[in-house]
């Protein structure tokens, strides 16, 4: 199995008001295609910083990350942007749906940025809405939906373009346990189809859906263990 993601001595330092805060400090990590990885740790341990770098939203202060074999420090912002839109899907804790767009339009957005032709776009959006059982809400705006429904829309948007990697930051954080389990089941099903999943979670129960759990503490990986079933 080839590596999809690889980091070497990854370091991320934030500086505010002349005070430097080390978020990640020498993180070495390999993620292979098809893996289901959960990243755990306390608040402020660097989970989200790591996820932002893995999602090509941010650059490390030092060290290197390779995505699909390409060193990201050598890529321009536009090239990183292209890699992200073609290969990565995001699921956020607060859903981050665009309030001014309907369910259909929110899901369609990544396909528009990928310049998928309109006919194909419509088919893909309807397929995923059917799969997520939200077709009847397609003309609704996010504020007219329940939390669970919003998360399903956010999930649909993340997967509609069939990305190779899905990054989910606390995807169950704003959901009750039933809806939380639904989301984790969806992620598992996607993983079974071959999509690489990386989630950040506080919950050991949800971490158990993954095959590998990485614990972060003060910007270091303290444990990196495979879960055996």
């Amino acid at each position, binding site marked *: 199995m080839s590596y999809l993601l690889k980091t070497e001595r990854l370091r991320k330092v934030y500086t505010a008001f002349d005070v430097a805060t080390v978020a990640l400090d020498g993180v070495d990590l390999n993620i292979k295609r098809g893996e289901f990885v959960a990243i755990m740790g306390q608040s402020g341990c660097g989970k989200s910083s790591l996820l*932002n770098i893995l999602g090509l*939203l941010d650059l490390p202060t030092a060290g290197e990350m390779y995505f699909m074999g390409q060193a990201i420090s050598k890529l321009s912002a536009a090239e990183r942007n292209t890699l992200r839109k073609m290969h990565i899907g995001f699921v956020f804790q607060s859903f981050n749906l*665009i309030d*001014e767009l309907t369910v259909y339009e929110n899901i369609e957005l990544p396909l528009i*940025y990928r310049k998928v032709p309109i006919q194909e776009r419509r088919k893909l959006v309807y397929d995923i809405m059917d799969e997520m059982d939200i077709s009847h809400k397609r003309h609704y705006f996010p504020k007219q939906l329940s939390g669970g429904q919003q998360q399903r829309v956010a999930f649909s948007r993340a997967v509609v373009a069939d990305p190779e990697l899905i990054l989910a930051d606390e995807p169950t954080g704003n959901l009750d346990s039933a809806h939380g389990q639904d989301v984790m089941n969806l992620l598992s099903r996607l993983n079974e189809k071959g999509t690489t999943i990386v989630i950040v979670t506080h919950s050991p129960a949800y971490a158990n859906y993954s095959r590998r759990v990485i614990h972060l503490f003060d910007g270091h990986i303290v444990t990196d263990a495979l879960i055996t079933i």
Partner: protein
Amino acid sequence: MLKNYIIIAWRNLYNQKVYSIINVLGLALGIACFTVLHTMIRYEMRYDLSFKNYEGIYRITSNVIKDRIGIKTPRSAYPLADKMRKSFPEDIAHLSRLFKLNLPFQNVWANGRNYHEKLVFYADSNFLEVFDMPLSAGSSKTALTKPNSAIVSSKIAKRYFQETSPIGQKLILRNEDTLTITGVFADTDNPSHLKFDILASFSSIYDLPIFARINKNWTSLPVWTYFLLKEGADIKNIEANLPKVVKTYYDSTFSAYYEMGIQPLKDIHLRSNLDYEVSENGDYRYVYIFWGLSLIVLVVAGINYMNLATARSSLRAKEIGVRKALGAARGELMKQFLCESMLLSLLAIFVALILLEWVLPSINNLFEYKVIEVYVMDFEILAAALCSGLAVGFLAGLYPAYYLSSMEATDIFKGNFVLSVHSKGFRKVLVVVQFVISFCLLATTFVCINQLQFLKHTKLGYDKDQVVIVPAPYAPLMRQYECFKADLLEYPDILGVTSMGELIGNNRDIFAFQVPSCKRSDSLEMQFHHAMMVRPDFEKTMGLKLLAGRFFNSDYPLTERSKNNCLTKNSSWADSTTTDDEFKAIIVNREMTKYLGYKTPQEAIGRPFLLIKSKLYSQMPHQERIIGVVEDFHFMPLYDQMKPFALVLSSGRGKNYTYYLAIRIKKGHTEAALDYVSQIWANYSEPKAFEYFFLSEKLNSQYIKEQRLSEITAYFSMIAILIACLGLWGLSSFVVARKRKEIGIRKALGASSLSIVFMLNKDFLILVLQSIFIGTAVSYFALNQWLGSFAYHVNLNWGLLLLSGIIVFDIALITVSIQTIRASQQNPVDVINQE
């Protein structure tokens, strides 16, 4: 993608109705103002461009200047045309002269009725070959070829003959000349400095005495001479050879002071401001001012959009973060935000067109501006509104697009996104720019009004109030002037009666005199001076102040015999003297005595000052000497510095040319006195209807350009302030909304409503105060420059700048306080519980 942009733009506009309305309204006002001003500018710039050959048409100008005294005029000598034709056979295709009798109007008898027409001109037969003015009836090739033929405007053709065909109809001018109508000018929307009601063939005046005087006279400059260049000819060739023409044909005494020039037709309306223009011209400086104003109002409107869009960027942060995470490149986001601003400007264009539809018909009345008939569906109006709207939408959208698209997704998701210091600073600068502009426009308006009032009310050196002017050129009654005057003076409330050749205050006449070459010498030299022909009692009627010597003697008392002759049309007076000063006396102003080198006015008394016009007016020898010196008075508009001036007593036939009767009436008795004058007028069986105007009103109307400028800046400064306040209102409401929690906590901790209002107002009002400070400096500099362009002007009044500042500050204070007072009244519990 575009559909997605438009959808989200539309929903954003819809969801944020208040901000959208502020933006759309501000932009619409800006676009509407721009379009109105653009229409005015286009109209001004279109003058004379409708003639097919406008690029090849030129006019000959004349400068007769000696020692800074003289005349610059677009007119030239009558015989010059033939010599020009002979001198430049290879260059000039057609050359044609235009002439107008020096009368305020001509009496026209047509179809059994009497009319007064001001725009009566005479032109050479080939005039329409130079200017291809379309005719709706008659042939342009033959209309002016025969003597006593005339082309009339379609307006007067309708007025005189209604539905009957005007061709072949007769017009009687000044009860003397009969003209036959041979053509009718077609109605056009094309502006031109050539405006005619009647254009008669030049040959119609060949028999008039005036023609005998101009026909072979090289020193008189009565005609406007236009010529059309041959194709391929170079105007520089003609220009270079003009001095040779002057040298060849002009008398050496005259040519020493005479300079001939050429001006292109297309420059006449905006760049020619000479004495004796064909019609009142425009001014290119005002075109620049209109351009400046139109752009300024657009900038103020554009700033509103920039300010509100960047201030509200925090509300768009999540969307930007998500789009970036989903792969939106910065360029795509910029396109999206630009698309929003363009959509907004399209809406604003639509609203602006509705505003224009409503406003355009009244523009003419508002600014006394002849923008003729312009409609919203006019291509130019649509193009101006569309182009200005889209341009301002694009430019104003650039900064917010750049700024919003620069946000980093990671900052947004971490909640670290805050308005950057840079953007806040930039927004403050924009608010300051808006209010500096508003302040400057308001200050300009006040100073314009101040200057206009100064021009209208400044002491002119004579008393212009209570003087009624009766234009009476060629009125038979003027042949019995002395009797008529005596009858008028019998009425106790008529304090003085005189007559003059030009209207005092608007006199541009230049006379040639024989004057001692130096103050002690008796050898005479020719000098040109501004002068006016008047009849006795001029100084009494006008209230001039005597410094030395005496005024002209009054007319001789009427003898019984002449009184009996009063009511008969006896014209033998022309060569008789009616005062013993005739041919002997000249009165000059103090400036003239200084010019001639006399230390005191007294020194000038008795010195020779001979009028060189003897042959024209009488066979009597001229022996004029200075008999009196009057205090300087403004015989010309206040644009010009005081100049040496002479009052010439009309003598012999010269009395024929004092066209304006001036009657001073006692204050408070005007109406009754005018009734009396009208009765006396009727007693003399004068066929001309009794018409009059008040001198003060006529003189005030000279400053129409300044009046128009002050009105236009007044309207546009009000609009600019309104737009700026709309923006300030939007910005303050946004800040208040963001500070609701802070206000609640402060109130819970015991802050008074007043202190809350002060806290919220402070930041805005500091910006407005800074604007007033900067605006004061800018307007002080700019307005002093503008005032400096007048020979006589007010000193820049600090009180007016202070007043502008107080008004701008108060309007801003009210605008912001509407928001902040309401916010200060909120119950702190509501906010704290909500939080």
